C-alpha cells in the first residue's frame, strides 16, 4: 500500500515523514521520527504518557492519526529542554524526586508545562484536575503535584 507523505513542524523544526493511514502520531514519533520520549501506556487515551502539544493544545498522540500532523505544529518532550539546560519543571521533578520508573514522566512534564502556560499560578486542586488524565503507578502523585506547585512559585517569582 502507498504510504502517506506528511510535512509538519516538530519542536519548531520542519519535519517530514512517511506513515500508514492508520498510524497514530505516537507511532510516527516513536518510529520514523525517532522521538521515543513520548511513551505508549494504554493506547486508548486514558493514561497521558503520550501527551504532546498540537498547535499549542495538549492532546494524547495515541488518539491522533499521524496523517493529521500535515501543516500543523507538534511539540514533544524532546523540545522541552534548551540544549543542556533543563526546563524548570524537569529540574524540579529531579530535585523533588517526582518520578520513579519514568514511564509517565514525559507526559506529566508536557501536561504540566501546558498548565503553567495557561495558568502560571495554579492551585493544588487545579493541578490535580488538569493532570487527572496522566496516570502514574509509582509515586502516588503527591510528589508530582508538589513539584509543579514549587515550579510555578519559582517561575512566577523569577518573572517579577
Amino acid at each position, binding site marked *: 500500500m502507498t504510504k502517506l507523505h506528511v510535512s509538519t513542524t516538530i519542536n519548531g523544526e520542519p519535519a517530514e515523514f512517511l506513515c500508514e493511514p492508520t498510524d497514530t502520531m505516537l507511532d510516527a514519533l516513536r518510529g520514523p521520527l525517532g522521538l521515543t520520549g513520548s511513551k505508549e501506556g494504554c493506547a486508548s487515551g486514558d493514561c497521558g504518557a503520550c501527551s504532546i502539544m498540537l498547535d499549542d493544545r495538549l492532546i494524547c498522540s495515541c488518539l491522533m*492519526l499521524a496523517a493529521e500532523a500535515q501543516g500543523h505544529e507538534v511539540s514533544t518532550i524532546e523540545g522541552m529542554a534548551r540544549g543542556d539546560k533543563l526546563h524548570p519543571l524537569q529540574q524540579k521533578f529531579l530535585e523533588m524526586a517526582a518520578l520513579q520508573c519514568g514511564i509517565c514522566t514525559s507526559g506529566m512534564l508536557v501536561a504540566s508545562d501546558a498548565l503553567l502556560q495557561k495558568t502560571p499560578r495554579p492551585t493544588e486542586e487545579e493541578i490535580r484536575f488538569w493532570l487527572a488524565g496522566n496516570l502514574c503507578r509509582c509515586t502516588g502523585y503527591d510528589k508530582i503535584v508538589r513539584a509543579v506547585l514549587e515550579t510555578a512559585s519559582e517561575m512566577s517569582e523569577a518573572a517579577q
Partner: protein
Amino acid sequence: MTNVRYLAPSTLNEAISAFVAAGSAARILAGGTDLLVQMRSGAVRPGVIIDIKKIAEMTSIQETSDGQFRIGAAVPGAVLAEHGRFGRVWPGVLEAINLIGSTQVQGRASAGGNLCNGSPAGDSVPALVAAGAKVILQGPNGVREILVEQVPAGPGRTTLLPGEIMVSFTLPARPPTSGDAYLRMIPRTEMDIAVVGVGVSLTLQDGVCTAARVGLGAVAPTVLLVEAAAKALIGSRVEAKALEAAASACSAACRPIDDKRGTIAYRTKIAGVLLKRTARIAAKRAEGN
C-alpha cells in the same frame, strides 16, 4: 493491514461525495477520541477515514444577533470553553461537554462526535436535549435540521442517513432569565462514564417557571427527553413539591440496564435525586441572570 485511505477534504461537498462513494466502509474523523480507540481494539475497520476538521463550518463558533449559537460539530471542548460568551449563556451545556474525558481528550473531543458515537451515556447529550438544541445534517440529498433527541437510535446507532454528515448544532435564543445545568453520577470522582446524567434548562418569570426541558442519560437505550418532568416544573416556583413530582417523572422514565457501574434500582433512584439537584442549580442560575 488492508488498504485504508485517509482523506482531509476542505469542503463539505467533497466530504459528502467521498462519504457516499465509500459507503459503509467510511468513518468520519472529528476528534478521534472514540474512533481511534475503536480502530485500535478492532471494533471498527474503516476502508476510508474522512477527517472533517479542515472544513470551516465544522470547526467554528458563531453567536447570531438574535441570540442563537451555532457550534460546529467538530469544535473541541477545550476550544468551546475558551469562547468568551458561550459558557455564560449555556453553562450547563458547556459543563456537560467539558466533563468528557481528560484535559488531553478535551483538546480533541467534540459534541458532534459524542452524539454520533451513539452512547446512551454521552455526557453532552442530555444537556443539549435540555437546551432544545438542533443539529444540521448535510448529505447527498441536501440539508435537514432535527432535534438532538431525534439523533440517537440505540446504543452505537443514529438516525443519520447514508452519506449524511453532522455539520453543526444550533442552540436557540431564550429569555435572559433562563438557566441550565448538567449533573452526572459516576463511581469515580472524575473521568468515568455516567451511571445517570441529567440536563435541565428552564426559564423563570417572577420566580415562576414558564418553560423547561429535561434530558436524561445513561438509563435507557438512548438519551431521553422527559416531558413529564418538564411539565411538573412548568408553572411551579421550582419548590420541593414540584421537584418531587419531576423527580418521580424521571425515575418513571428510566429503562436502565444492570452493569458494573450501577444496578437498575440504583440508576432509577438516582435519576430522581439528580433531577432535583440539577433543576435547583438551573433555577438559581436563572434567578441570577
